[in-house]
């Protein structure tokens, strides 16, 4: 930041000088419903003079209208932002609040204690340096207390203040406080909290919040606010190795190439060596240009720009590091995954994973085990539902650079995004990389796909027929293959039913099995394409996600999606294999169109209505498309 040329004087100068040395602390408050979280935050805002007169007037109006404290100010109303929530009397999402004292500025994430909202707490904790865990003195350590404490630990927070609230309601009894402290210390012993303190408070009355309570002479510790002001321990640390994910490459002109990013950890100076991951290339820092002039050194927490001495290939998502402390690079790792979406996780479905600024395709294995957050027991699981936490193995479609979450919060964390809905469906923390993929490398072969295509005097591709059972996929593909064969082309018809006699014999028709079935089929099609063969693939393939995955495996340019379309009434009437009848009778669960959804292709290359068009006309339409694409000789 620029330093003003004319130095201010007087009260403004004193104020700004004080601000200059003030740091920022982000914390989260967690506790069960009615433990008084919102009241505590309201109290902190009130005591630190962050509530203005008009807000106070609105608060006293609201307190009378919907307050739960009789005529008294209901501080919880300050933070319960959304109208619907106010009426329900509970906070149901993450709200951020701000206050500052003479020593520090604070950002507070207020997160709900509701059982079903693990997602929100994890969100609030992900950016916090410290956690306040609230316990109702009358209730002691509850299941929810254990859950919140485990999540705080899981998200890597090591600074914890346990605020034992409503101490006034147990007559300021020291023995209640002591027994809660003892119990809490015992169950959290293995969580590695480096700063753990206990404070008896009454958020409602203000005891031990900013001033020492006269009602509890037995408590000799600091007030809650003093602990907040004095706790050291930021998540962004300078003494860790340098890490920066490249956000973008700036090329305003031919002579300038700057790499933009946020320093997640460590520091960097002009002249330092830099290694780019996953490529492993090495260069040196030529300069650190910025709006306010050239910098000589930059540190964790800053948004910077780097110019290197060499022109090497670096793009968005690459991780810049110092060569002495390389991160892990690989395609497989084990992680804690928190599922944040109403739609359950599908093992082996292709999702997107965003780590730092890099987005790649990812497949999540069936969970190794799920964690019961109340008892910390390991449970068997075949999928993940909203708010589940599990240990899973993930496989990315390209190498990524990362660290273990416990080592580095920013290069060890990722989110999972659904390809179709674009929603953030999960979040994860990397435990360790899996070495198994390191033993597998690509063997270079001399004869490549184009050599085989030349020998066959044809181009290879996969014509992917998707549609309901009975829509006419196999009929159409068979007729097409006859015509292509007559033209002297090497073809192969991959049929879903036929594959199920062998390669996919172990799979059923659940969603998970359908996903695996299509994964195998896609790879077979891709191998056949590499062999120079034109593939006709007939699979119901009801989900857009899996058709997208197939396209990625087979290759964008080699994948031709044909939507074989007929209304359900027509396909059910045709019922060539008698399957609809069985499904209607309930003998065939998960049957597409009956009790399992068919997602219509969004933009197929060819769309054929088999209820309107004859087989030969359909074949002609496909042949015309292949000619237009120069796929036929």
């Amino acid at each position, binding site marked *: *930041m*620029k*330093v*003003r040329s004319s130095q*201010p004087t007087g009260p*403004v100068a004193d*104020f*700004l000088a004080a*601000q*200059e*040395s*003030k*740091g*920022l602390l982000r914390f989260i408050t967690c506790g069960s419903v009615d433990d008084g979280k919102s009241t505590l935050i309201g109290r902190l805002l009130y005591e630190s003079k962050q509530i*203005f*007169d*008009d*807000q106070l007037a609105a608060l006293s109006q*609201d307190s009378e209208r919907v307050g739960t404290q009789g005529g008294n100010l209901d501080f919880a109303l300050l933070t319960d*932002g*959304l*109208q*619907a929530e106010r009426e329900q009397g509970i906070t*149901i*999402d993450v*709200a*951020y*609040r701000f206050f*500052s004292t003479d020593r*520090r500025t604070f950002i507070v994430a207020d997160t709900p204690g509701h059982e079903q909202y693990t*997602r*929100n707490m*994890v*969100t609030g904790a992900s*950016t916090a340096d410290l956690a306040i865990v609230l316990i109702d003195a009358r209730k002691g350590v509850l299941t929810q207390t254990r859950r919140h404490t485990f999540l705080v630990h899981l998200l890597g927070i090591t600074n914890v203040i346990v605020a034992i609230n409503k101490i006034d309601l147990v007559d300021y009894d020291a023995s209640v406080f002591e027994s809660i402290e003892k119990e809490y210390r015992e169950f959290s012993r293995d969580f590695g909290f480096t700063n753990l303190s206990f404070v008896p408070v009454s958020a409602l009355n203000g005891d031990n919040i900013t001033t020492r309570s006269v009602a509890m002479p037995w408590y000799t510790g600091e007030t809650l606010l003093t602990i907040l002001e004095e706790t050291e321990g*930021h998540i962004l640390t*300078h003494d860790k190795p340098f890490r920066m994910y490249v*956000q*973008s490459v*700036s090329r*305003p002109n031919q002579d*300038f190439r700057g790499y*933009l990013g*946020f320093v997640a950890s460590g520091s960097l100076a002009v002249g330092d060596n830099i290694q780019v991951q996953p490529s492993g290339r090495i260069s040196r820092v030529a300069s650190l*240009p*910025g709006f306010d002039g050239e*910098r000589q050194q930059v*540190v964790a*927490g*800053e*948004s910077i*720009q780097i110019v290197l001495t060499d022109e090497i290939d670096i793009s*968005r998502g690459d991780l810049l590091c110092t060569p002495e402390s390389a991160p892990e690079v690989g395609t497989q790792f084990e992680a804690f995954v928190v599922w944040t979406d109403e739609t359950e996780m599908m093992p082996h479905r292709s999702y997107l994973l*965003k*780590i730092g600024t890099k987005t790649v395709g990812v497949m999540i294995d069936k969970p190794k085990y799920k964690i019961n957050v109340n008892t910390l027991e390991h449970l068997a699981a075949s999928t993940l539902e909203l708010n589940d936490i599990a240990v899973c193995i993930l496989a990315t479609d390209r190498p990524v650079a990362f660290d273990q979450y416990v080592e580095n*919060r*920013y290069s060890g964390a990722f989110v999972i995004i659904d390809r179709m809905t*674009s*929603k*953030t469906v999960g979040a994860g923390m990397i435990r360790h990389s899996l070495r198994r993929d390191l033993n597998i490398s690509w063997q270079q072969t001399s004869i490549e796909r184009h050599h085989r295509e030349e020998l066959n005097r044809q181009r290879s591709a996969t014509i992917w027929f998707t549609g309901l059972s009975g829509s006419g996929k196999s009929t159409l593909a068979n007729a097409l293959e006859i015509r292509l064969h007559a033209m002297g082309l090497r073809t192969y018809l991959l049929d879903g039913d036929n594959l199920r006699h062998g390669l996919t014999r172990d799979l059923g028709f659940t969603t998970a099995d359908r996903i695996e079935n299509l994964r195998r089929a896609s790879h077979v099609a891709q191998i056949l394409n590499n062999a120079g063969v034109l593939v006709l693939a007939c699979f119901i393939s009801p989900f857009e996600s899996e058709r997208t995955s197939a396209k990625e495996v087979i290759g964008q340019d080699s994948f031709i999606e044909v939507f074989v379309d007929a209304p359900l009434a027509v396909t059910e009437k045709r019922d060539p294999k008698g399957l609809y009848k069985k499904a209607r009778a309930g003998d065939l669960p998960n049957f597409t169109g009956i009790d399992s959804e068919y997602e219509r292709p969004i933009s197929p290359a060819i769309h054929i209505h088999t209820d309107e068009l004859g087989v030969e006309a359909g074949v002609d339409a496909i042949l015309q498309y292949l000619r237009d694409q120069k796929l036929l000789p």
Partner: protein
Amino acid sequence: MKVRTQSHLSHLEALEAEAIHIIREAVAEAINPVMLYSIGKDSSVMLHLAQKAFFPAPLPFPLLHVDTTWKFGEMIEFRAKMTQLVGADLLVHQNPECIELGINPFDHGSSVHTDMWKTQGLKQALDKYGFDLAFGGARRDEEKSRAKERVFSFRSDKHVWDPKNQRPELWNIYNARHGAGESIRVFPLSNWTELDVWQYIYLEAIPVVPLYFAKVRPVVERDGMLIMVDDDRMKLRPEESIQQRKVRFRTLGCYPLTGAVDSDSENLEGILTELFTATTSERQGRLIDHDAAGSMEKKKIEGYF
């Protein structure tokens, strides 16, 4: 060059770095981004941060001002001056329907005026240019419903915000993916407070509209607020008379809907001093927030920025 005397960043340095990271991330993920420019102090700060984020490259997006034709005259002058200074590409949109119907705050009331000019106008402009990501200068400390909104906030193809169905936002990993027609609003100043904004303006010497500074101005008292008579479209009620008072504005919007406060703060030092001892919040000067409980939340659900 900056000389650091302490091991950690100051809170303003941390906020600056976070905002720049957000702006760069949004631009990297967007197809067609735009920055909503409302001419106020938050817009000034956001624009300054955007320049820092991409220096020495020019701004990689245009600025969009959704103009209601009822802004203070000085704001429009400042808009022209700033966009020229920064070398930004400025788009101005005025809802043609409002022009035709002559929508104004006096005859139609603040809620119709705001909905038609600003909410509908914004939607029209976003659709017209096909922007899939728009930066806004809103801060979480301004208002309770803002406190819960994400930094990257998803809007449906009808520009609707669903507060119950927000994407979880973890660490500093932002998800800007969206389907066709859907869009993302991005708020780089989410974690700034009013005081942070003024301190930053002061430290960085960022230009702001002179209306923020106290000066003797013609005002009338109306509905408990001091309204400045900015042009001859403002008709006085029988009981009203124009007073010359030394006032300033804590927030800027349409002049008939923006209340002034009595003040002697003629410069930034004065404003900062005033803020250390402030007893009212800045949105107090905005008529639109007082219409009904939860009014901002309702507006946001309908597509207000």
